[in-house]
């Protein structure tokens, strides 16, 4: 029983991280139809920058906030320099460029920091909480992960639903031409979307780094789990991303706990294929947003 609870709890923690990554993917995908495969690597890069700041003697929280800000600016820069020229060309092109970004960032990070596995410090204790008499696999830092992601999702939902900027972002995503005719600065909102998405990706990378060691490639699998979560959630709504993240986290945690950690990616693949076969619009998505 204890093992079951531990697997469940670690699934929830992982699921929250995947939800943050999925949220970043959803923000970009629904605005521009691009899946940003470079998001994990961008988060990895900002985490390495935060690590360098920590080594300079700057405290954990300033480094944390700085990394989020860097991720935000980084996302805006990528949209402006790499994505903007590709607007209106074949939809494959921007996706391929994000893959190029993934390899470049990993290559640059590897050249600078090497492939040694490092330990990123956590903001809170990573010893499991004691409930009753047993120690469960849920630490104060895990509580922070869950809280941070919930705050992020709530903030995004509030932004989209109850603010003017959010309304414009939804309009720009729904129909760029009409939104532009109505006076919405669509290109600025795309920049904002990318910035928010990459901020979310950086948050996910910073949260997941202390859970195990980190190296230039540590976000590859996390990104793809985030992708699975986003597809499960239907690739349209922040709440879908959250639920998709939880389902993915639990599935992976149980596959890893009861079969072996090496089958985790294949478990995610099987989950993804089953969902794509049975409900292509995602478990929590409504109608499939597929423009023709």
């Amino acid at each position: 029983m204890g093992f079951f609870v531990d697997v469940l709890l670690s699934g929830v923690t992982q699921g929250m991280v995947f939800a943050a990554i999925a949220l970043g993917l959803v923000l970009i995908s629904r605005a521009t139809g691009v899946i940003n495969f470079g998001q994990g690597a961008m988060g990895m890069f900002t985490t390495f920058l935060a690590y360098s700041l920590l080594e300079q003697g700057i405290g954990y929280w300033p480094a944390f906030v700085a990394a989020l800000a860097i991720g935000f600016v980084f996302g805006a820069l990528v949209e402006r320099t790499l994505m903007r020229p590709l607007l209106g060309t074949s939809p494959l092109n921007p996706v391929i460029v994000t893959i190029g970004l993934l390899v470049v960032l990993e290559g640059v990070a590897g050249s600078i920091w090497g492939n040694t596995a490092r330990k990123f410090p956590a903001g809170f204790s990573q010893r499991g909480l004691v409930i009753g008499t047993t120690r469960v696999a849920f630490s104060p830092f895990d509580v922070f992960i869950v809280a941070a992601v919930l705050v992020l999702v709530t903030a995004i939902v509030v932004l989209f639903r109850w603010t003017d900027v959010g309304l414009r972002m939804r309009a720009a995503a729904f129909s760029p031409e009409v939104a532009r005719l109505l006076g919405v600065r669509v290109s600025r909102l795309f920049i904002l979307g990318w910035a928010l998405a990459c901020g979310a990706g950086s948050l996910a990378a910073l949260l997941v780094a202390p859970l195990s060691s980190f190296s230039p490639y540590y976000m590859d699998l996390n990104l793809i789990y985030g992708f699975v979560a986003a597809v499960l959630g239907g690739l349209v709504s922040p709440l879908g991303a959250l639920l998709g993240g939880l389902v993915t986290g639990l599935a992976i945690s149980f596959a890893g706990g009861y079969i072996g950690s090496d089958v985790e990616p294949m478990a995610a693949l099987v989950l993804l294929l089953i969902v794509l076969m049975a409900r292509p619009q995602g478990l929590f998505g409504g109608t499939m947003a597929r423009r023709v």
Partner: protein
Amino acid sequence: MTSTAPPPVGDLSPAPSPLHRLARSAERVHLPPQPLVRNLIFFVFGCAFFYVLTVSVSAYNDFQIGQIALYAVVLAGLSLLTGLNGQFSLGHGAFMIIGAYALALLQVHSPMNLALELVLATAVAAVAGVVVGVPAARLSPPYLAGVTLLLALGLPQLSAQYGSVFGGEQGLTTTPPIAPGSISSEQWLAWIEVLCALVVILLLANLVRSRFGRNFRAVRDDEVAAAVAGIHVARTKVLAFAISAGCAGLGGALLALSTGVVNVGEFPLSLSIALLAAMVLGGAGSLVGIWWGAIALVYMPTWSTSLSKQLSLGTSASAYLSDAIFGVVLIAVILVAPTGIQGGVRWLLRRLWVAITGRGSAGAAGARAGPLGPGSGAGSAPGAGPLAAAEVAASGDGVPPAVGGGPRTTRVPDDRRPGTGTPAADVAETRQGGERS
């Protein structure tokens, strides 16, 4: 990469120069109209070219030629998938693993004729392609990319989980083919690999000109129009993906043969991405362009090692540098020259042709279109007959003419040879824009 329509200079041109007359006489050489016969002619030229090349270089270079040929097999499949069908895969390294392990397991458990083993390894990878492609093909391209990325990351770990079957970290060994007579083993291996590559390209070049090839293009350009024209969209996409996966499997099996061991460490995610970059670099959809990509794949480690020495980065950085270079290439090609090297070569040859003969071809307009997916690829035959011949001769690798990925014409070319258009292709070609998202 912007080309403007050449000014009409026909009647104003001075007396024909010798070069001009040569070009005119080249124009009179008519290639047979049947694609199969034409492609067979190029196939024979290719065999002759590689035979001369392999016997005249050292054993190490023979090994490298073999490597280039096996990567050309993989890239041919990938190029077909992206350039002709508008899908793309981040997991062709995984299909190479499947082909390589299928060959090794066959050799361990029931050794048979090498050709049969290669065919079976190809078939196993193609079936795996169907399994992955069926769910993903119903959706837009990024889904397939995500699914295949997951496959490329997850499949290598299975060999650790089921070490008793797959040999774990050490992997499996393969038995290299025994060279007959006095031929060196490297040369024999290179011949096998080159023959496989040329056969695959011959088959694909015919496929491209067949009903299936037209269906691929129609689905790429507009799924709805293709469906209206009676094409089964999902089946077409899965077929393209399975063929592409089969090519990757054959390439993986050849790699296993040439290195003697199969080990998942040889197929990291970065290989899958390097394959994509090499395909884009050569020019998506071009069966000539894949050779540029294959050469880049084989020589990139050498180049990046020497580059990291020049930058004094240390030995461990060179592997990262090679990955980073492929990433930069991927971004730069898409942003700057979306038709890849072969697009540039084709443009140069067309300019040369125009300069020599003073006549343009209708396909010269609008070279700055996207290379990939809708709004890309040559919906028409790239260039007229003699031009295609000149292109093949000049690129020096003697394979059939490019099959797509060429500069997209901005209108339906009116010099399209009769018989190449079908209702399906016409439906697709009348809608030129890349509006689908």
